[in-house]
C-alpha cells in the first residue's frame, strides 16, 4: 500500500486518529510501566521462549487449519476453519491471557482482574491465574451472568471470584467500567488483563501481538496445505481480538481480503445491534478513541446481540484504523443469520461453533455466491459453542 492508504505502525499508541490513552491520571503511570515492560520483552528471547512453550504444551498450539470439504461443496468456495475452538479452555482468548499472565509475573503483581462478556475471557483468565497461583477476580455484567451461567460456574471451579455488575446496561461495557474502578483502586498489586484489542495503549497492540499467533500459523498452514495464501479471511468482531489476531500478519498482503463481521442483532435499521464500525461514530470510551455506538449527546447506547461476546458498543482502535484505510471491510449479520450458521456447521461438519464465531460463518453463507469455487476462504472459528447451549435450547423452547 502507498500514499494515504498505507498502514503505519501505531505512534504513541495512536492508530491514525484512533487509540491513545484516555484514562484517569491515577492509571497513567501503570500504563507507562506496562508499555515499557512490554516493549522490553519484545526482543527478550527468554520471555518469547517461555510464551512459545506455554502455547505449545499448555494451550495445545498450533491449532489446526481444517478444510471443511462438505461445507465447501454446499457453499461453493473452499472453506477452511482456523480451529481456535480447540485451544485449552475452548477459545482464542487464552492466547492473550497466557501472555499477560507472564507479564503480571514479571511485574510481581500477585492479583489479576478481568472483564468478561461471554465468559470465555474470564475463564481464560481464571485458568492462567490458577496455574500461576495468582488471585483472580472477574467482573461480569449481571445480564451476562444470567445468560452465560455455565462459564460463571467454570470460573468459580477454577478458583476465581465472579463479581456481577449491576450498573448501566449490565453487560460487557459495564463490566469494563467496574474493572477500571477496581484497577484504579488496587493498581499497586493488580494487573488488569483486558481481553480484547480495546482499552488504553498499550493494550490494543499488546493483545494484538499475543493473538497474532492465529494469523502467523494460518499463513504457514495455508502455504503448506494449499500452496498459496488465502484469498479471504473472515472473523467476527466485538472488541475484535480474534479478528486482529488473524488479520494482522496479512495486512501487508494486499491481495488478501480481510472481512470483519459485526453483530447486526435484530438488524442495523432497528438500532438494536452491536455494530459500531457499520453504524457508529468516533468517540472516546474505555481509554481509547474509536467508533462507538452513541447518541448525538455522546452517551453510549445499549447494544444488542444474541452473542454476549459481541455485545459491546466499541471496537478496537486498530479495526477503526483499518476501516478508515479501507484495508479491511466490516459487515454485519443478524442474530437469525448467526443462528442459522450455527446449526449449519453442526449438521454439515459436526462442529459446534460459539455464537460469536457463527457470525463469521453467516457472512460467508450470505455472500457465498460472490466467490469462485477455487477461492480459499479462512474463517476464524474463534470458540466452541458449548457455552451457548442453554441460549440455543431456550430459542428452541427447550429447558435443560
Amino acid at each position, binding site marked *: 500500500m502507498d500514499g494515504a492508504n498505507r498502514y503505519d505502525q501505531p505512534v*504513541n499508541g495512536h492508530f491514525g486518529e484512533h487509540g*491513545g*490513552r*484516555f*484514562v*484517569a*491520571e*491515577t*492509571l*497513567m*503511570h*501503570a500504563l*507507562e510501566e506496562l508499555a515499557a515492560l512490554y516493549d522490553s520483552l519484545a526482543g527478550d528471547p527468554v520471555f518469547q521462549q517461555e510464551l512459545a512453550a506455554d502455547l505449545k504444551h499448555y494451550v495445545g498450539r498450533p491449532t489446526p487449519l481444517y478444510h471443511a470439504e462438505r461445507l465447501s461443496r454446499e457453499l461453493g468456495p473452499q472453506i477452511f476453519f482456523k480451529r481456535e475452538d480447540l485451544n485449552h479452555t475452548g477459545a482464542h482468548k487464552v492466547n492473550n491471557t497466557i501472555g499477560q499472565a507472564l507479564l503480571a509475573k514479571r511485574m510481581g503483581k500477585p492479583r489479576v482482574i478481568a472483564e468478561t462478556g461471554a465468559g470465555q475471557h474470564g475463564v481464560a483468565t481464571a485458568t492462567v491465574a490458577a496455574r500461576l497461583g495468582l488471585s483472580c477476580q472477574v467482573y461480569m455484567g449481571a445480564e451476562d451472568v444470567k445468560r452465560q451461567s455455565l462459564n460463571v460456574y467454570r470460573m468459580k471451579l477454577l478458583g476465581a471470584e465472579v463479581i456481577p455488575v449491576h*450498573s*448501566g446496561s449490565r453487560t460487557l*461495557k*459495564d463490566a*469494563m*467500567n467496574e474493572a*477500571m*474502578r477496581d484497577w*484504579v*483502586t*488496587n*493498581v*499497586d498489586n493488580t494487573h488488569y488483563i483486558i481481553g480484547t484489542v480495546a482499552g488504553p495503549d498499550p493494550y490494543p497492540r499488546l493483545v494484538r501481538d499475543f493473538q497474532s499467533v492465529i494469523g502467523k500459523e494460518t499463513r504457514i498452514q495455508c502455504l503448506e496445505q494449499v500452496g498459496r495464501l488465502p484469498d479471504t479471511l473472515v472473523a467476527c468482531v466485538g472488541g475484535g481480538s480474534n479478528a486482529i489476531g488473524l488479520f494482522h500478519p496479512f495486512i501487508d498482503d494486499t491481495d488478501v481480503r480481510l472481512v470483519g463481521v459485526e453483530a447486526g442483532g435484530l438488524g442495523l435499521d432497528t438500532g438494536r445491534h452491536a455494530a459500531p464500525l457499520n453504524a457508529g461514530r*468516533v*468517540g*472516546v*470510551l*474505555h*481509554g481509547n478513541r474509536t467508533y*462507538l455506538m*452513541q447518541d*448525538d*449527546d*455522546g*452517551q*453510549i*447506547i445499549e447494544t444488542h446481540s444474541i452473542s454476549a461476546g459481541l455485545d459491546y458498543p466499541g471496537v478496537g482502535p486498530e479495526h477503526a484504523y483499518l476501516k478508515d484505510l479501507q484495508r479491511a471491510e466490516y459487515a454485519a449479520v443478524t442474530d437469525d443469520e448467526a443462528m442459522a450458521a450455527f446449526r449449519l456447521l453442526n449438521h454439515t461438519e459436526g462442529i459446534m461453533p460459539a455464537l460469536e464465531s457463527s457470525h463469521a460463518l453467516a457472512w460467508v453463507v450470505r455472500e457465498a455466491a460472490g466467490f469462485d469455487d477455487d477461492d480459499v476462504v479462512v474463517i476464524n472459528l474463534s470458540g466452541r459453542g458449548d457455552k451457548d447451549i442453554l441460549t440455543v435450547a431456550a430459542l428452541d423452547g427447550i429447558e435443560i
Partner: protein
Amino acid sequence: MSRLGRRFAALSAANRTALTTFITAGDPTLAATVPALHQLVASGADVLELGIPFSDPEAEGPAIQASSERGLANGIRLTTCLDMVREFRARDDETPIVLMGYLNSVLAMGEAVFARAASDAGVDGLIMVNLPPEEAQTLKCELDRADIDLIFLVAPTTTDARLVKILGRASGFVYYVSLKGITGANHLDVRAVAERVAKIKAHTDLPVQVGFGIKDAASARAVGQHADGVVIGSALVTTMGSEVDDEARLIRLGEQTLALRQALDG
C-alpha cells in the same frame, strides 16, 4: 483576571481555604440544580463544580454513578448543563463554575463549539476525568481561545516527570486526587496527602485543591490545613439524591455545606 483567579486571590488574601462543592446536573430533577447551586454559595461554597452526566463514568463511585443515572433519566444533555450555568449566572456573576465530566460528551458537541458555548454560558473551567495532558492538545487550544481553564488532575501515582509535564499545561487550579481509587472512597491518608500537596506546591504557583474521599467536617478540616482548597462531591450528591421534598433537600444541603465551611474556617 478570570473568576477563578479572582476567587483564589481573594481567598489567599484572607488566608482562607477554598470550599469547592460538586453536584451532578439534572439530579434529582432538572429544576433542582440551579437552586442547589445558589444554596451552596449562600452556605459558604467558593467554587462550584457541576457534573456532566455520562453513561459510563468509569472513575466514579456508587454515589456519583447513581446521580449520573438519575440525571440521564431526566433527559439531561450537555446543552442543558450549559443552560443551567447561564441561568445561575443571571443571579451570580462572581462564583466560578467548573464543569466536570468525560471527554465523549465534549467530543459529541465538537470541541470548538463547546468552548464557545461554555464561554457564552459563563463557564470558567473544565475537568475531563479521562483526558490526561498527552491527549489534551486540541481541546486545550480551543478552551484557551475561549478563556476557559482546563484543569488537570494529579494522582498519588503521578511520577515526578509526569508532574512537571502536567503542571506545565495546568491552569485555573491543580486538582490533587487524594487517593488511589474512585470518588467517594473510604481510605484517605491525610499525612500522605500533605506531603504530596507540598511537593506539588513547590513546583507551581497555582492553587492546589484536594478531592476524592473528603466527606465530612473532620476530613475537610484535616486536609484543608495542607491545601488551598478541598472538593466535596459524593457526600453532597448523596444529599441531593435523598428521598425528601425540594425544600427539605435544600435545607439539608445548606446545613451540610455550612458545617464544612465552619470546619475549614475554624
